[in-house]
Each structure stands twice: as structure tokens, then as C-alpha cells.
């Protein structure tokens, strides 16, 4: 029972690392990045090819994953999303073009990964890191789970503190409330957007490395299914709110674990979609969502 609980929290922490950057980017600079799942997957894949050459320890792998994720995300922003936003002053139209552009980037990355790996799952068995299980009283917990829990807690805490207290965080939130007034107040939108996407990509990369360690192996298609779960969690908690993402990811992880243990596995997929649907109907702004003044 307690172990099921720990497994659910670990799953929730992975979701959290993945969804955090996506939610902040969506809530502030208005970019819903459909290539986030592929960024996550490509980071793990690059780390896999490196570890096949040199046997690397886990911290180095995490750094590599973060760096690759950051690079991919920054390139996506600079080459695709930024040109689209510059050409479409109308935010609603830009939103749709950004979704389409993100889908395009995602299919490029997915095709590259499928070609290189031949759609065979890959893992980090060549790394120097070995999984150990510890007994804390009657409860078993592995060192990977510990790393995941600590990483998620620290990074989510840092993001929340930064958004709330740092001057740049304030500027970023200002863009989320009203981009035009924010730019009149001297906020450099382009630079903030690039920084946000860099951080979001790094978080996705780290999540990719940690999930691969935790599951043993992932495939090129893993990113896509994670993307849907992340949407559900973000909408559940409320777009752009760190407390919301934490709540959303944990609720989703517990609900999925509950369904898998009590019903059958084929219904697990329905949990995320069903949650999206119910939340949008009864709490359209999510649990922690701020009231958005927006024309329809």
C-alpha cells in the first residue's frame, strides 16, 4: 500500500518535471509547445548514444539531458515560434500557427529518432549508475526514486520562488497578464521568451533522463503519450501556476495508479482524457487558474 503510494508520487514527480516548463511557457509567453514531448525524448536519446561511447555517471547524464533539451527548445523558439509570433500580431491566430509549427517540429524529431533507433526501446545500462533498493522501516524505495523526488521538489520550488520573488520572474508574469503593457514598461519580450523556453527545455531533458533510469528504457514514441498526460495535468491545475502543476500532476498520477491497480490497464489511458474533459466542464480555469480576461 505504502509502496503503491511512493510509486504514484514518483510518477507524479516525473509528470511534474515534464509539465512544469510547458505550463509556465503557456501561461506567460502564450506558447503551447507541442514539440515538448519530442524534446524530452531526443534528450534521452542523445544521452543514450553518448553513454554507449563513454560510461558516464548519473549526474553527468542529467546535465547532458538538460543541455540537449535546452538547445532543442531554444532552437525551436528562435527558428519557429518567434517568426510565427512576429508575423501574426493577432494572438489567437498566432496560437494556432504555433500549435501547427510545434506539431511539425515534433514530427521531425520523432522521425529522426525512429530512424536512428529503428523504434527499438533504448536504456542507460552502459551508465556507471546501478539501481539499489533501500528499506526505510517496512517501506522499500530505490535510489532512482529518491533522485526523482528530490529533483522534482527542488526544481519546482526554485521555479515557484523565482516567479514570485525575482525581478525577472515578475517581468515574465507581467507578459502573461498583458504583453503590450509589459513591453511599454521595458520588458524585453523576445529575451524573456527565449529564457523561458530554455528553462522549459532543460526541465524536459532532465525528466527524459530520469524517466529512462526509472523505467529502464524508453522508446521514441514515449514523448507523445507523456504530452497528453501533461496537458491533462496542466489544465487540471490551472495554466501557468506552479502550485497548479504540482496538484494536477499528483492527482493525475494517483488517479492513473488507482485505475491500473483496481480496473484494467486499457482504461488507464482514459483517465487523463476523462480528467481533461471533466475539469474543462466544471472548472474551466483549473484549480489554481487565475481569472483570465479574454475576448472570445
Amino acid at each position: 500500500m505504502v509502496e503503491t503510494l511512493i510509486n504514484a508520487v514518483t510518477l507524479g514527480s516525473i509528470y511534474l518535471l515534464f509539465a512544469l516548463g510547458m505550463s509556465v511557457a503557456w501561461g506567460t509567453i502564450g506558447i503551447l509547445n507541442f514539440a515538448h514531448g519530442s524534446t524530452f525524448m531526443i534528450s534521452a536519446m542523445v544521452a543514450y548514444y553518448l553513454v554507449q561511447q563513454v560510461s558516464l555517471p548519473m549526474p553527468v547524464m542529467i546535465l547532458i539531458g538538460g543541455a540537449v533539451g535546452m538547445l532543442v527548445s531554444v532552437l525551436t523558439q528562435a527558428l519557429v515560434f518567434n517568426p510565427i509570433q512576429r508575423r501574426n500580431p493577432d494572438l489567437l491566430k498566432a496560437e494556432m500557427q504555433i500549435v501547427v509549427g510545434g506539431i511539425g517540429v515534433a514530427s521531425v524529431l520523432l522521425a529522426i529518432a525512429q530512424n536512428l533507433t529503428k523504434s527499438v526501446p533504448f536504456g542507460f545500462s552502459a551508465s556507471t549508475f546501478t539501481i539499489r533498493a533501500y528499506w526505510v522501516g517496512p517501506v522499500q524505495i530505490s535510489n532512482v526514486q529518491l533522485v526523482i523526488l528530490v529533483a522534482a521538489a527542488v526544481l519546482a520550488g526554485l521555479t515557484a520562488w523565482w516567479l514570485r520573488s525575482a525581478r525577472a520572474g515578475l517581468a515574465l508574469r507581467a507578459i502573461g497578464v498583458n504583453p503590450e503593457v509589459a513591453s511599454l514598461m521595458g520588458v524585453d519580450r523576445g529575451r524573456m521568451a527565449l529564457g523561458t523556453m530554455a528553462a522549459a527545455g532543460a526541465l524536459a531533458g532532465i525528466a527524459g533522463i530520469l524517466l529512462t533510469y526509472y523505467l529502464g528504457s524508453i522508446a521514441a514514441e514515449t514523448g507523445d503519450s507523456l504530452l497528453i498526460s501533461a496537458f491533462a495535468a496542466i489544465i487540471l491545475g490551472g495554466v501557468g501556476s506552479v502550485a497548479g502543476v504540482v496538484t494536477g500532476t499528483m492527482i493525475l498520477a494517483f488517479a492513473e495508479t488507482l485505475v491500473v491497480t483496481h480496473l484494467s490497464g486499457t482504461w488507464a489511458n482514459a483517465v487523463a482524457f476523462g480528467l481533461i474533459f471533466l475539469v474543462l466542464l466544471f472548472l474551466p480555469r483549473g484549480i489554481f487558474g487565475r481569472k483570465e480576461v479574454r475576448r472570445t
Partner: protein
Amino acid sequence: MIWYEANLVLIEATFINFLLALSIQIPLRVGVFSFAGVGSYGIGAYAAAILTIRYDVPAFAAIGAAVVLAAVVGYLFSLVVARLSGLYLAMATVAFVLIISVLAVNGGELTGGAHGLYGALSDLTTGGVIAVCVVVAALLTLTERGPLRRRIEAVREDPELSLSMGIGVVPMRQLAFTVSGALGACAGAMNTLLRTTVSPEELNFHLIVLALTMVVIGGSRSWVGAFIGAVIFTWLPSLLSVVGEWQGVVYGVVVVLAAIFMPTGLVGAAKDLHRRIRGRNRAVPTAPDDVKEEREVFEALSDDSTEGVR
């Protein structure tokens, strides 16, 4: 004729993709970002398969029943999501599509579970498919001219202004969901009857992506755009066999470039080009009434489209 016989499957697929693309395009034309049409494709595919296999009804009756069922579901769905807009609505419709595929997997005997249904043999011919598409295109042409087109454009560009001018925005959106459901189901039902099988795997995220990219690349304002998109994305894979295993990369790059450089699709880009050339050739451009009216609508609407968002 030999070419026709050899490429029959691709030709049929072109017309079915055309209807699928239309089911995404119709909501877009009234400013609603909805993928529910792909879910209706699934409803139509399963309804037609079940009717044909269990009750042995003729093709047109099976398709008709599937279309009516999905239109009703589409209307009810529009009531459910009436409060949502923008990307939230888009996400709700993605959830709708994926829930339908989960229902298909868990449907037991009725839907054949993860394996789907086999042996839906019927008398549907390629000519029948093309005839349906021609009728649909002719009906849509009526919505693309005159007062009706201006009303649709007003609802898309500025719902508040349309309301104040007495255009019913809510009924228009409900109608769009209903028509989208009917067209999606028509595509799904005809595809099932031509291929004689249906499985839950067909109804995945990639079908959503395909439907969206066809509309975005062709153009979202006219059925011609949907048709061009359907032709391109049905035939592109076989043309791209030249680049072999890298066709996924080329496909993605095409989508990215279209998103950046052709926000109105091929049809929109062609129209812009046409206008520019005509403007250069004539010293005093005397636009026909139709174009003038369109320009007036846009001028009236474009004043406040960027301020006050968020």
C-alpha cells in the same frame, strides 16, 4: 485508365481525406479550433461497420445512419463545450477523440475490442464516394459567397461585433459542430465500407495531426483549400518514397515552413499573389463588388482585433 486502376486506393483515400479535412475546416471557418470531427470519423466508422456486419443494411443506409448519429453527437457535444474557447476548447476536443478510441478498445463484442471489426462488405463504389464529395463541395460553395459568407467571416473575426449586428454566434457555432460531425462520420463510414475493416488504432493522435495539417497547408477558408491539402497529403508519402526512410523529416519540415510562411495556406497565398499582380497591372484597381465588400468587412473588423486580448 490503367493509371486509374493502379491508383484506385489512393484516389479513394484522397476523397475520404477531403471529407475528413472539411470536418476540421468547418469549425475553423467560424473561429472554433475543434478536432471533434476526427472523433466523429471514429463514430461513423464503427456505426457503419456494426450496421453492415450485424444487420446487413445497404451501403447508403449504413452511411446515412452513421452521419445522422454523429451529427446528433456533434450537436450535443457543442452544448457541452459551449463555455470553452481557444486552446482549451481544442484540448477538450482532443480528449473527446481519444475517449472515443478508448471506448472502442473497451467496447467488448460490439466494437471487437483491440482487434476491431472485420468483413464489412458492402456495395459502395468509388463513383459513389466521388458523388458524395461533389455534392458536399457544391453545398459548401453556397456558403462561400454572398451574405452567408460575410456572416460566417464576421462570426470568425469578431463574435462580439456580430452579436451586436444581430448575427447569432452561438447557433452558428452549434451548426458548425453538427456539420463537422456529419462530414467526419461520412468520411469514417465510407472508409470502413471501402476497406471492410475498422480498428481502434486508426483513431489516434496522428489522424488528428493529418486532418489539421491538410487544412493548414491547403487553406482554412474554402473547400478548395481542404481539397488541395487532401491531394497533397494523400500523395506525398508515395512521392516521398524517393527520400526513403527520411520522409517523416521532410513531412515535418513542410508543415513547419507552412506554419511560418503561409498562415492562410496555399489558397490564401495564391489569392494574395493574384491580388498583388492585378494591383500592379492596373493603375486604378477597380475591384469587383465581391472583393470590395470583403474588404469593407475586414476594415470594419480589424480595428480592434489586437487590443485587449488577455
